[in-house]
């Protein structure tokens, strides 16, 4: 009796590796001409819309010769830059004198009053008439400032209309001190001391028990700085945001008046005379004054000492931003979602999936390989599209002399890479949904409804701010936060909407929300792929 050895193939399982699987999936992708063309279309759409944004802008302020629009040109104002390089508001009234070397300024504030615009929609006695009141961020206090030019370094300790005592420095810094509203029976003592480059702020309710509010370093503060009492009150912006649009009613400049006494200046300089001065635009004269009677100073000022928030309807509305250049991301996302969904569903349609799964029976690995291929392809597409869009947008804006809202190199790089990651993860989401619903059209519709529609409803159709913020927190549209380029300042009242590139979540948190949705969809896809017949 002879034993028959069953035939065994001499081939080893070497080609079963994950690398081979990846290679196979990449081959499947790259050999479909329509998909490669779609990648090109996605990049072109991103670049084209950046061009539309930058080159299509024909503001009424464009010079006949197309030259640069400078301050006073009418619609593209240039703002002073703060020590950190950000555009700032630096307009206020100050009663000052030089402070040489180390020293301190102390004052007691007994009242903060002011004038505001009538509330939203209601009519004042006449156009431009104001009524008594204090803006929430109307402020008066003591300040040590590098010099009297706009944008110079400073540290200030102040009482505010609705935010208690604050110490603010170099425009972006802000930290709270004592709470409550200042009044004659409940005054606030404020003290700033200088020691070298370090300014320390203290506040007190009684002038004997002092609490340190903050201590900041103003690098390069000259030996002779200016110390003084100031008043400022930001412009009022009566904006109501509701579904269908924002409505603006009235608004305009406001004033804040602080009453100071027990003013003492100690330090290297002989106590000189106080001098009052409005810091700010030359044409804004008359908004501010001071009055001295005995030891009591009454200082009235208008304007603000704060960073400028980029935003539609705000002071920097005319500025082009990286957000404008990346407008085409939406077009790119939709195009990539289409091919990502088809990358999965085409296998079902042609019954190719049975071949695929026969060649690689571990179904989860097939899904992983597809996700990696489509993710990588989409990342490169989004990255290249964003980089070219931002590059061309910036170049066109500069060549036409338009004003671009300043952005630092690292932030710009983060936004561009973030856009690549956004497109990559969105494509994987589309792939996973495609694997679950097996219909590419339905998958594309679901991706658009969960990513583009929430952004649209929140920013363009303009839901009320609270509802809009929630949409951009919990839906996959939270991922757009990777394109958020400019910080939101709690001490600056502005319209921080997604339309201007402000998102309720940080870049990382928003991206994490999108990734969580994608991970859930992938898990669902893996489960269904294993459970269901192909």
């Amino acid at each position: 009796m002879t034993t028959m050895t069953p035939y065994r193939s001499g081939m080893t399982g070497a080609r079963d590796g994950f690398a081979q699987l990846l290679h196979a999936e990449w081959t499947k992708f790259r050999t479909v001409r329509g998909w490669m063309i779609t990648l090109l279309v996605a990049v072109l759409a991103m670049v084209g819309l950046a061009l539309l944004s930058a080159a299509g802008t024909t503001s009424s302020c464009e010079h006949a010769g197309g030259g640069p629009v400078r301050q006073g040109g009418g619609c593209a104002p240039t703002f002073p830059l703060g020590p950190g390089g950000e555009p700032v508001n630096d307009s206020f009234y100050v009663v000052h004198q030089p402070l040489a070397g180390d020293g301190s300024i102390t004052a007691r504030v007994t009242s903060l009053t002011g004038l505001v615009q009538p509330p939203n929609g209601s009519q004042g006695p006449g156009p431009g008439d104001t009524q008594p009141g204090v803006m929430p961020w109307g402020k008066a206090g003591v300040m040590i400032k590098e010099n009297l030019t706009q944008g110079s370094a400073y540290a200030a300790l102040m009482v505010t209309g609705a935010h208690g005592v604050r110490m603010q420095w170099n425009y972006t810094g802000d930290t709270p001190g004592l709470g409550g509203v200042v009044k004659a029976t409940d005054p606030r003592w404020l003290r700033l001391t200088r020691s070298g480059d370090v300014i320390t702020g203290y506040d007190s309710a009684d002038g004997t028990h002092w609490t340190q509010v903050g201590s900041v370093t103003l690098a390069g503060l000259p030996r002779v700085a200016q110390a003084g009492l100031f008043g400022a009150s930001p412009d009022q912006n009566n904006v109501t945001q509701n579904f269908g649009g924002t409505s603006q009613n009235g608004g305009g400049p406001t004033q804040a008046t602080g009453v100071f006494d027990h003013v003492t200046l100690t330090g290297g300089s002989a106590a000189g005379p106080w001098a009052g001065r409005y810091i700010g635009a030359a044409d804004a004269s008359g908004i501010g004054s001071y009055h001295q009677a005995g030891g009591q100073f009454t200082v009235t000022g208008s304007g603000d000492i704060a960073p400028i928030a980029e935003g539609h309807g705000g002071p920097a509305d005319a500025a082009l931003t990286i957000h404008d250049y990346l407008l085409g991301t939406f077009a790119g996302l939709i195009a990539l979602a289409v091919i990502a969904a088809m990358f999965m569903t085409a296998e079902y349609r042609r019954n190719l999936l049975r071949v695929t799964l026969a060649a690689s029976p571990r179904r989860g690995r097939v899904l992983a390989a597809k996700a990696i291929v489509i993710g990588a392809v989409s990342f490169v597409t989004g990255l290249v599209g964003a980089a070219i869009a931002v590059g061309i947008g910036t170049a066109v804006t500069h060549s036409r002399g338009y004003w671009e809202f300043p952005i630092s190199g690292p932030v710009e790089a983060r936004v561009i890479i973030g856009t690549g990651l956004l497109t990559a993860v969105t494509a994987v989401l589309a792939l996973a949904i495609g694997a679950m619903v097996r219909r590419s059209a339905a998958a594309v519709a679901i991706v658009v409804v969960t990513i583009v529609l929430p952004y649209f409803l929140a920013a363009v159709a303009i839901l009320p701010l609270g509802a809009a913020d929630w949409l951009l927190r919990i839906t996959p549209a939270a991922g757009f936060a990777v394109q958020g380029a400019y910080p939101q300042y709690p001490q600056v009242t502005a319209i921080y909407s997604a339309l201007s590139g402000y998102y309720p979540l940080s870049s990382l948190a928003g991206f994490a929300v999108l990734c969580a949705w994608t991970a859930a969809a992938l898990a669902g896809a893996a489960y269904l792929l294993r459970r269901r017949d192909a």
Partner: protein
Amino acid sequence: MSAVFPACGSAVHAEWTKLRTLASTWWLLLAAVALTIVVGAAVGAAFQCQRFACAPAQTGADPAKISLAGVYLGQVIVALLAVLAVGGEYATGMIRVTLTAMPRRLILLAAKAAVVLGWALAAGVAAVLGSVLAGRLILPGRGLSAANGYALLSLGSGPDLRAACGSVLYLALIALLAFGIATAVRDAAVAIGVVLGLLYLFPIVAAVIPDHVLARHLEQIAPMNAGLYIQATVGVKSLPLTPWQGLGVLAAWAFGALALGALVLRFRDA
């Protein structure tokens, strides 16, 4: 030539049978109606106005537009059904059988379009009636009440009736637009991508670009912006187009897409 009309009737009947016997048709109908109503109700519930600032002049709120906001989502489902009605045939190869049975391609296209249109009108009527009802129930509690100077949403008032009927027509035209594009590109996924891109990109671009003049022109030609002017009952005079002109812009898009689809179907091999 005399055979045209009977052929037409049986073609519509055949197309109706194809659509009717798919479970997805009815699920999508349900989804379109339910999602439209739910989103409209949610937008209404999210409406805020501070005390003493709820007057129409202060909020600028448009009760009809708020109630019918669900159309933003409902239109996606309507478009999805329209592209699936065509894309499904190309995906399965059924289109060859269909064309063998019904060689007059343009009549076939018209029959299919009529069936899709009927479905979209039915979905639109149900969704809009539900949305208006939800608006009547929800909005007065959110500050849009008679006490604050807002009339209760009612199909008896001219502008509200225009908004409601217009929204139904809007959904029907979106269905035709999607149907025409799907016939032209022959793939449901590509078609839905193109349709949703057309619908959502225009308004986003118009809202973001800094140039307000260009933005206004974009809104005038955008199928969704222009088409939804029909929902406006407040500030109609300040719109870039009148409501009916706006719906006309969408109709031009829809019939343009249908014409393109007809050309492709007529002259290309299936």
